[in-house]
């Protein structure tokens, strides 16, 4: 049902090797893309700027990290620092006089360089030890930003993003910001989807599954691990710049603190390690569910259904949120994307059951 396979014959390699060979998948993607493109007309600016925009940007961040954590198997607990490097670099470059488009590239390159240096630690350590090395990156970058006023923007440690344009469109309009974020998340999505099917991606998967086994079959582990860190940090850096310009409009060190790193890791894990759809679902869950819960509790309290002190009311969403995370992970340890995958597989062979995994 829905995902009908009968009558679909691929007679050319191009059609068989396209990203979504099953029409139902393809149509879903097209429909979602059309909705995303029409979003500024469909939703009010509250939902556009406070929900869709941050969601798309944080999805790009989660996608960048899923390349490293999900596909290449390298844990990174300092990804917010990578984004911070991108954000600060882009702002300083634009203030220096570079056009925004080039500043985005510069942001990516700077983040990739510094991220790559710390990634070099990955050549020697694995697992929890790599977590420690990346944590060190988070704290070092934080410390440098706070302690060098030339970077952080003086005593206030706040840098406003300068007014600029993207491809001749003014970047201070909500719609333009939204479309820049959308363009970026579509680019990253396509990139990750395709990386998974290339020799680069397969080599990363081999490294993830067992690195010395990968070495035995002729994969240069040093090179691929470094490339994974470089690529992922590049994407993270550009995402940081997009986050600064399109959403925050002012950067402070707290926006890229350790908590944010943990949030991005949570997005990747709750969504499903290595899954592209998972990055979207995970980002929505981590970013938007607390807001929705807070508003729901406030609404209930407004109706008089919940009478408690302000402090307790503020903490109820946190409790529910914690319960939800535990619940989802118990229900499906492989993440939110796996829940969709199960449904899809069920319908794929319906009314039979043998393809359920």
């Amino acid at each position: 049902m829905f995902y009908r396979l009968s009558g679909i014959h691929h007679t050319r390699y191009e059609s068989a090797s396209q990203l979504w060979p099953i029409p139902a998948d393809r149509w879903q993607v097209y429909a979602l893309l059309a909705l995303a493109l029409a979003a500024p007309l469909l939703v009010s600016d509250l939902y556009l700027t406070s929900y869709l925009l941050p969601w798309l940007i944080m999805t790009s961040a989660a996608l960048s990290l899923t390349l490293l954590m999900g596909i290449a198997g390298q844990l990174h607990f300092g990804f917010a620092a990578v984004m911070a490097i991108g954000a600060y670099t882009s702002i300083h470059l634009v203030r220096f006089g570079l056009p925004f488009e080039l500043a985005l590239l510069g942001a990516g390159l700077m983040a990739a360089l510094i991220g790559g240096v710390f990634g070099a630690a990955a050549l020697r350590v694995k697992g929890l030890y790599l977590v420690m090395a990346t944590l060190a990156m988070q704290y070092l970058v934080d410390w440098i930003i706070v302690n060098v006023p030339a970077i952080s923007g003086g005593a206030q440690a706040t840098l406003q993003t300068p007014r600029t344009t993207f491809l001749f469109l003014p970047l201070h309009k909500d719609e333009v910001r939204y479309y820049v974020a959308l363009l970026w998340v579509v680019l990253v999505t396509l990139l990750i989807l395709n990386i998974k099917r290339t020799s680069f991606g397969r080599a990363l998967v081999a490294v993830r599954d067992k690195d010395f086994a990968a070495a035995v079959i002729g994969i240069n582990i040093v090179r691929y691990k470094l490339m994974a860190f470089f690529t992922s940090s590049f994407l993270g850096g550009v995402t940081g710049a997009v986050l600064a310009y399109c959403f925050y409009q002012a950067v402070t060190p707290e926006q890229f603190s350790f908590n944010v790193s943990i949030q991005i890791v949570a997005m990747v894990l709750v969504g499903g390690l290595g899954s592209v759809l998972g990055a979207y679902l995970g980002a929505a869950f981590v970013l938007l569910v607390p807001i929705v819960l807070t508003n729901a509790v406030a609404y209930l309290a407004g109706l008089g259904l919940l009478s408690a002190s302000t402090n307790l009311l503020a903490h109820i969403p946190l409790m529910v949120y914690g319960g939800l995370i535990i619940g989802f992970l118990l229900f499906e340890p492989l993440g939110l994307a796996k829940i969709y995958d199960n449904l899809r597989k069920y319908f794929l062979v319906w009314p039979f059951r043998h393809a359920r995994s």
Partner: protein
Amino acid sequence: MKRTLKKAAMTAALAVLVGAAPVQAQKEPIKFGLLQDFTAVYTFVTSGYNQGQRDYLTLVNEMGGIDGHPIEVTVVDTGNQPQRGIEAYNRVRRDGAILVDFLSTPVANAMVNRVLEDEVVMLTVMHGRGDASDGETFPFVFPLMAHYWSQAALLVEYIDLYEGGIEGKKIAHVHIDSPFGREPIPVLQELAKQKGFTLRTFPYASPGNEQSATWTEVRRFRPDHVFIWGAGGGQAVSVREAIRNGISPDKILSVVWLAESDMHNVGADIAKGVKRFEATVTGTDTPILQEIMEKVVKAGKSAGDAKEVGNTYYNIGVASMAITVEGARLALKEFGAPLTGDKLRRGIEMIKDFDAQGLIPPVSYSSKDHQGGGFGRVSQWNGKSWEPVSDWHNAYQDLVWEKIRQEAAEFKKGR
């Protein structure tokens, strides 16, 4: 005699207001958004501060609102996260809020551009950008009370005037290693040069639960006075470590963030003598607090625990709203309803020598000065409560304003 007269006038006014209430309640409400951090970093201050704000607004509403307009408050938790602050802000703005208060530096700093564009008044009482005092660069941002630069300058002047001069003394500035902890350093350095005292800074790592290594260093420096510049749980740790390292409590001077609860955490008797900056009167002896006790707390309409009433942070909350309501009242009188963000801003800028019936030092605002002069005083812990040990005054404002203008110019350049 004067007081009785005032009281009588107040009661009369109240009678009129109550009598007229049903008619006046028809007027459109004025909406404020208190979008604060109840669950993350600022929890130590938010509950008291927010309760003070809401209790005062309840009192105003009980007395018929501002010129008949009731005040509607939206309270939202932002968890100190800018993205949640942005969502909450956009939501209340859509509902017509003309004033927001985030009580969180990261969130408030991220909102500066937005409030300037949307013409919504943002309060940054004891948080946010210090240079927001410059009303010409930040027309919609109001620190309302003495900001950190003014506080540091005032503490220096206090030592100079009341503790036998500051020249030749050794001052240790022990601070949390964050932008907030570093903020007063440039002003202190400049003052050290002008006044001829030795300044050394000692950072400790955030959040400040563990400071012993820092204080060993401080002891070696043998300071005459110690400034502690932190917030929340770290402050009690600072006081305890200072005393453990042989620094007499009366040599400790703190930024505004040192409350009754911190003193009880240290040990109310041990901490006897500790001094701090304060911007409002503490306790419930002022007329406004008395009224809140009578009409809000005793009537069971307080937004929180009755024990909080009169505490440091509670009173700061009350003062922030007292000033705002005065501004709104002036704005309504001058420009008429409906109130907008721009009218409210102009209203606050019209306030002259307002002291909230003795709760705060007399403050005046203008289109240039959104800090209100930077007044405050030093108070000392006597084992039970905070006792003022200096008069209301402001210190070295020319130096502070030089810094404000310099930073504000940087902000303008970066936009």
